[in-house]
């Protein structure tokens, strides 16, 4: 590797050498110093270096150089190049092995150093680039800082200018205001001056007028006269009356009469207006009451309450009727009351209307967004589900059809092919036929069982009911017997146990047993066929059918009184679970459940009969 390095990158190797030289600098051998100088003077020339190195050792100074090297190496902790001398006199001989070892070690060292150097260099490069990057960043940031600073300065300047402007405007405004004030003052002073002048002028004018009056009017102006052919009568036909104190008083009276008439007229008008307004108010109040009171109650009570409020209104009206005369007389006493009540009602109405508004807006806002969408989503989901189911069913039907067709095809193919196939498929056909018949049989069985099942369930329901009744009566009787007829009680027990038939246990155990049985006993018919069904047909219709019956049965078991068969959703895992459950129940309770069931039912019927017998 070192060779390769020297070949490919002589400069680098030279450098590495110089580095190695630097390490030995402490020694300060003359040659090394020299070499250093040489290296410093001519670094890239490896040839020179080479020649120099070759010049390090010559024929003459082999010994010296060896010893020098030995010394150097030993100081660096290498083993001595010389063999261990046996005697002091004997000249130490060069140990080739040691030399080689040393060489090797040196080479290894050299390689290591080279590697380290490389690493350092790459790191250096990296750091350099980092440095560049950082410097760039720094420069950029500095620039940014500068620009922002400039901007800030600009903004400050603008701010200052605006403030200046603002101040100027303020000043202007103030000036304007002052101006306005001044002008107003001027106007006012002018006005007073004008008035003063006017007054003076007018006085003069009046004086002149007075004088003119005297001049013109006082001397008997012959010209001022009226020529009339004859005086005409007054409009009213009366003669003019003398001016006396009486006429004055009459005039006054008339004036006041006119004024009074006017005021009376106005008062009347106002009264009329008031009455109208009062009427409107009252009507409003009534309407509000009738409008508001039913809404306070719940809607379903509305019908009853509206009549109630009507009645109350009527009562109120009766009260108001008597009061109305008072209303007309003096408004003040009632006014407050009326206005207050109206205000109250109005507030209620307002809040109600606001509420309604809010509701309406809410409905408008959310009606389309939330409820409707949710329902639609549901709807879509539902339809999607249904579609999926339909798809599945279709596929199933298709596969079935295919199967059937295949079967048919195989059955009614050409003779040759049938012949050809027969030989191959005879066996298979046989098997299929067998299976088919088996399947049919199973189906039939299943149907039958299902029917019997439902019947049994119905019966069971009835019986259970009867039993419950019977039990109640029995308990009652027992209680009575316990108190009165002990012997009869024991007889009854016996009778009961005798009737139970299959077992002659005590009545409490019977109860518990019957109860235990019920869940297991109901689906008892199915297990045999289900196992077969699942084996023969992986298709779901039959299983779903089964599930229907199963669910029906379970329904019977849970609440017998309800007998309508509702198809439940048939989820595959549920089916599987139920099947498993079925298997489990079957395995757990092998044997004749039906028998047991019928036994139970028979007991119930018997007990029923017995109950009829009982008083």
């Amino acid at each position, binding site marked *: 590797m070192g060779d390769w390095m020297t070949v490919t990158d002589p400069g680098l190797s030279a450098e590495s050498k110089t580095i190695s030289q630097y390490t030995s600098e402490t020694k300060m051998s003359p040659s090394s110093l020299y070499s250093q100088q040489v290296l410093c003077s001519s670094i890239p020339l490896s040839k020179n270096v080479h020649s120099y190195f070759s010049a390090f050792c010559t024929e003459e100074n082999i010994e010296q150089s060896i010893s020098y090297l030995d010394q150097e190496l030993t100081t660096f902790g290498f083993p001595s190049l010389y063999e261990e001398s046996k005697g002091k006199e004997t000249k130490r001989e060069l140990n080739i092995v040691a030399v080689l070892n040393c060489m090797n070690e040196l080479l290894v060292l050299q390689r290591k150093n080279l590697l380290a150097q490389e690493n350092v260099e790459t790191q250096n490069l990296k750091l350099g680039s980092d440095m560049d990057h950082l410097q760039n960043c720094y420069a950029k940031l500095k620039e940014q800082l500068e620009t922002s600073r400039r901007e800030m300065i600009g903004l400050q300047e603008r701010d200052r200018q605006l403030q200046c402007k603002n101040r100027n405007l303020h000043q202007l405004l103030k000036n304007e205001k002052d101006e306005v004030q001044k002008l107003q003052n001027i106007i006012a002073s002018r006005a007073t001056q004008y008035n003063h002048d006017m007054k003076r002028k*007018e006085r003069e004018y009046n004086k002149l007028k007075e004088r003119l009056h005297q001049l013109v*009017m006082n001397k008997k102006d012959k*010209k*001022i*006269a*009226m*020529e009339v052919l004859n*005086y005409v009568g*007054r409009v009213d036909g009366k003669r003019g009356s003398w001016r006396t104190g009486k006429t004055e008083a009459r005039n006054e009276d008339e004036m006041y009469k*006119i004024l009074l008439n006017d005021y009376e007229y106005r008062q009347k008008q106002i009264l009329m207006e008031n009455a109208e307004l009062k009427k409107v108010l009252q009507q409003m109040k009534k309407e509000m009451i009738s409008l508001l009171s039913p809404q306070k109650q719940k809607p379903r009570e509305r019908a009853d309450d509206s009549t109630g409020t009507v009645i109350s209104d009527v009562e109120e009206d009766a009260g108001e009727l008597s009061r109305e005369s008072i209303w007309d007389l003096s408004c003040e006493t009632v006014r407050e009351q009326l206005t207050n009540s109206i205000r109250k009602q109005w507030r209620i109405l307002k809040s109600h209307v606001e509420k309604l508004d809010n509701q309406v807006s809410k409905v408008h806002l959310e009606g389309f967004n939330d409820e409707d969408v949710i329902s639609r989503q549901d709807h879509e989901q539902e339809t999607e589900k249904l579609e999926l189911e339909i798809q599945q069913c279709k596929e199933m039907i298709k596969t079935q059809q295919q199967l059937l067709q295949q079967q048919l095809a195989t059955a009614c193919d050409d003779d040759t092919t049938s012949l050809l196939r027969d030989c191959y498929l005879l066996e298979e056909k046989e098997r299929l036929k067998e299976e088919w018949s088996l399947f049919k049989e199973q189906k039939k069985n299943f149907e039958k069982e299902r029917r019997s099942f439902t019947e049994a369930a119905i019966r069971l329901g009835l019986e259970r009911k009867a039993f419950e009744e019977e039990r109640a009566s029995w308990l009652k009787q027992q209680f009575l017997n316990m108190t009165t007829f002990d012997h009869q009680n024991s007889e009854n027990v016996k009778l009961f146990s005798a009737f139970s038939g299959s077992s002659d246990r005590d009545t409490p155990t019977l109860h518990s047993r019957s109860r235990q049985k019920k869940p297991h006993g109901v689906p008892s018919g199915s297990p045999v066929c289900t196992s077969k069904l699942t084996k023969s047909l992986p298709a779901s219709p039959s299983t779903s059918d089964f599930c229907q019956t199963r669910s029906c049965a379970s329904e019977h078991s849970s609440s017998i009184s309800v007998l309508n068969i509702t198809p439940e959703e048939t989820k595959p895992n549920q089916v599987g679970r139920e099947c498993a459950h079925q298997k489990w129940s079957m395995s757990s309770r092998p044997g004749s459940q039906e028998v047991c069931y019928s036994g139970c039912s028979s007991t119930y019927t018997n007990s029923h009969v017995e109950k009829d017998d009982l008083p």
Partner: protein
Amino acid sequence: MNFSEVFKLSSLLCKFSPDGKYLASCVQYRLVVRDASTLQILQLYTCLDQIQHLEWSADSLFILCALYKRGLVQVWSLEQPEWHCKIDEGSAGLVASCWGPDGRHILNTTEFHLRITVWSLCTKSVSYIKYPKACQQGITFTRDGRYLALAERRDCRDYVSIFVCSDWQLLRHFDTDTQDLAGIEWAPNGCVLAVWDSCLEYKVLLYSLDGRLLSAFCAYEWSLGIKAVAWSPSSQFLAIGSYDGKVRILNHVTWKMITEFGHPATVNNPKIVVYKEAEKSPPLGHLAFPPPRAVAGPLTSSESKYEIASMPVSLQTLKPAADRANPRIGVGALAFSPDNYFLATRNDSIPNAVWIWDIRKLRLLAVLEQLCAVRAFQWGPQQPRLAICTGGSKVYLWSPAGCVSVQVPGEGDFQVLSLCWHPSGDSLALLSKDHFCLCFLEMEEGVHTAFGQRGDCT
């Protein structure tokens, strides 16, 4: 709609008698009385000089003709054509003359408003009222003719005197808190007197008949104030038009403002109908293009119609000269319809438009924009019908059903400068500079439907 033939007229003096039977008109120094329906001349009176003022007595029996230049008043009787009466004010001069409400007294105002002379036609008695104020509207009678309110000026203060008209006795005399009273007006019910200050100050004072101050209203200060005032016929509202281009309406209970009607130059409410008068382009002939039309000169007899403008509408506004007296701004004319339902106004800075307000809803109902400045408008006395004239050859009628523009027929140009309604509301006298004609509105069925339509009808 029918038009009468055109009669001669001078000084726009043409008046229907209060009972609606007669029509008096003046031609120079002649007074012509016609039957209002047939227009036949019933009487012809000759005065001493050019008639400057004409007025019917309240009972339609006498006609007053004032000849201000000569300081003369001549009275004519309709029943007795030979009866005559001449009142000479002599050197005192005459500036105004009017009938007393009873039709037997004449109130003459002498020059320089030195006094008012009350002449009686029944007796020789003459009454004088001193110190009448020279102002826009300084004399007002109540509707029932019982009382006279007179604005006076004494010692640089404004006073109002209330006289009983039957014997001209002073009933009340009180000073008003005004700088320079500009006008007074009785409410139609005769119990409230509105007094307003000159345009330099916005101030309305309301006095009861017995002289009590009921209320004072001031909308703003330091600006030109009231320009016109109108009572609603029911005395319920007082509309005040002012120089800020607004109408403020006071109510009669609290005398506070109930609403404020602005008159903006742009109308941008789709509920408001803006009728825009549009010229029907005359049939193309050898007319020069653009058609020559002098601004003040006679309008060519081009037809016009109303179009309903689409919103927003910007109305033509006039830039007022700020350095002149009596600037053309503010609401200078306003009138309630006889049924109190509508109020018509004109903002003088938008001279081409008439604004019609719905008083029941207190909002703007319609705007009529004419091609020329509106000269005058008057409500029909019986129905809410507004007649408008603009000095052109057309008369415009608005009713809640719509509006029409009607061309006055006849050779030459008939510039309608003024108009007055017959008391029945069936006909309308249209007055031009030296002619007048009657416009009969009693309509046949077909015309009625046409009138009901919004649109044009000539």
